[in-house]
């Protein structure tokens, strides 16, 4: 329904909070992929979130946008678990990002492996179990899961 413009217009974004609550009651843990920006579609999941991960890339523009998302999360009193620096490259500004955001930063490099996993529909644990990117994503997942411990 969301994957078309007509579907997006027909949907009622306010109902997302109730839906997340229902999924949590059924399955225990809900991970919501929020869109970029500062409109209600980014804010509504924060109403019901316990914690968040901000995703950025190393570019200055992306970091500036991610900072605004971080401030939005603060307005809703949602704790920041980690900052994921996507497409981090060989020399990611991890320390600077951690200082800026006030949370540990996890660099996600090896974009080609991630794209290959996405296009082939395979998880990284099957495609490249010993890769650094898989280890980093596992580290990110453990940090998120620790919030639900």
């Amino acid at each position, binding site marked *: 329904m969301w994957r078309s413009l007509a579907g997006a217009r*027909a949907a009622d974004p*306010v109902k997302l909070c109730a839906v997340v609550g229902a999924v949590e009651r059924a399955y225990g843990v809900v991970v919501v992929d929020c869109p970029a920006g500062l*409109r*209600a579609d*980014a804010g509504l999941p924060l*109403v019901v979130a*316990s914690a968040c991960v901000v995703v950025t890339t190393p570019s200055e523009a992306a970091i500036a946008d991610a900072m605004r998302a971080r401030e939005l999360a603060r307005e809703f009193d949602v704790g920041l678990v980690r900052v994921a620096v996507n497409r981090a490259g060989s020399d990611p500004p991890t320390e600077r990002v951690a200082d800026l955001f006030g949370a540990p930063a996890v660099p996600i490099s090896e974009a080609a492996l991630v794209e290959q996993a996405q296009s082939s529909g395979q998880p990284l644990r099957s495609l490249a179990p010993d890769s650094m990117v898989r280890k980093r994503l596992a580290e990110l997942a453990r940090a998120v899961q*620790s*919030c639900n411990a």
Partner: protein
Amino acid sequence: MVSLSATTDRWDGVTLVTARLQGAGVAQRVRLANRLDGPVWPPRRNGVPEEGWKEGSYETVVPADQTVAVGYASPAPPTDDPLQIAEQTIVDQRDDHEATTPADVLRELGDPSPPRDAVPIPITEESDGSTQADLAAGPQGTSNGGPPKDGDDADRLSGDPARDPESTRPARAWEPVRGVPGQEMQAQETPCQAPAAVHGWLDTVEERVETAERLAAADTLPEATEALRAAGSLAQAEDLVETLQDEEATLEAIASRADRLAQRSTESDVPLATFERLA
């Protein structure tokens, strides 16, 4: 009784403490005390500790049956028990901070729905086998290879259903298509006989929207170059975006007014028969 669970994480010589307070049955004001052997570095905003932090302790209200998250840092080494509940008292009155509702968020941050004109019109096949042109030139909208020709645009609101390519459009020009309770999509076409000046303005706006959609759809450098060339120049593309932002507000205002007028027109019931008798 509020329950506390806390974990620690050591990162770059700093211990990060993450805690959860789980409420039970009734709202309680809780004061937490640090048990690490070192100072508390509370979360700060613009250099000022967040509300609730004071001299190494943290005070907050835990609503009944809800969870409150707490976090802070310390240079001290981690322990199994970094935090303790030093004090908890039942809150007699409801906290004066009203919880944020989803409706509040929508009101404050704005509706994320795509604008009405961005929603493509589905193509339907007529009984004689011809198809109605898809009037939306967005990336999802066209399946006949491009935007409507000028002739189609001129006829779009002409009121002639036989030639009107909008037979799949909602009944009125401004009929909302959103699936919100209280609003319904009309299935049948009603000819629109707006003045020529209105047609002309809408056609001009639509051309700008189509140009913006082509620019937005460009995923590669060659596509972006071509789209920018079609728009004229980068400066013209920037002017286009600015103009469309102003026009979006105007279109929404017109749509809203047209909806209200249509509703009032529908609800007005002129007793012509009575007037005829009186006359």
